[in-house]
């Protein structure tokens, strides 16, 4: 390595960015988070569209069956909801979860 090579290395080193640059890293990661969010929204929209299209297609065939099932299950679902609410309201943990415990 000659003297001029050393001089070149020194001059190149003068404009090196700092080894640690939290701001740059933060900006990149912020943009990563934004892109992931948009990607997730796109996926969810696509999924919703596919499921909706599927339901529209099969509803004439499964619709009557689902309606019968709903009518049959309504009393049981209602009773279950009431029982669960009572359980939550009367337990200490339930009260503290609701912020009602003093």
């Amino acid at each position: 390595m000659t003297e001029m090579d050393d001089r070149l290395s020194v001059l190149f080193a003068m404009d090196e960015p700092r080894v640690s640059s939290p701001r740059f890293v933060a900006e990149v990661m912020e943009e990563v988070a934004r892109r992931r969010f948009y990607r997730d929204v796109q996926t969810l929209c696509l999924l919703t569209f596919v499921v909706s299209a599927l339901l529209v297609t099969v509803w004439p065939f499964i619709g009557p069956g689902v309606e019968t099932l709903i009518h049959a299950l309504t009393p049981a679902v209602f009773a279950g909801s009431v029982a669960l609410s009572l359980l939550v309201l009367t337990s200490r943990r339930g009260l503290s979860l609701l912020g009602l415990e003093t």
Partner: protein
Amino acid sequence: MSLADQTKDLIQAALGGSDQAFSRLVETNQGALRAFLRRSCGDWGLAEDLAQETFLLAWERMDRFDPQASFRAWLFGIGYRLCLAALRKDRRAKARDRAWLETRGAASEADLADRMALDQAMSDLPLDQRASVALCLAGDFSHAEASEVLSLPLGTVKSHVARGRAKLIEALGGKE
């Protein structure tokens, strides 16, 4: 654990969706990548944008990365292609010269004169020669790694580095 092993672990974790691991990869490589892009495209503002875009593209294409290959070479390859595209689109010679001078840190007059001579000489080099010099002389890339980054034959990179070095030394008033 060696640096290569650490990088492999980080890549595996990033492939699994870990933002923390990807953030570490950005932190480890940002300095060298930004320096390379600054020297290759000559415009500091543009280089910063390109560096950010390089990492974002790397994040999006992480699943295409071959874990056996060099992550650094793959990353710098993305950066170089972005730089080529940007320079083809917009040759900002004046802005580049201005930005280069504005961002200059405090230095002695002799250093400043040498820096300006070096900057001028760098900007006069053809882009692939400049990129070869930026990787092998200013950075710590081997000729083989640079050849991978720039998609150029090894012999071409070696000759680019030798010719570029000679021109830079000449610009600084030195002799071989």
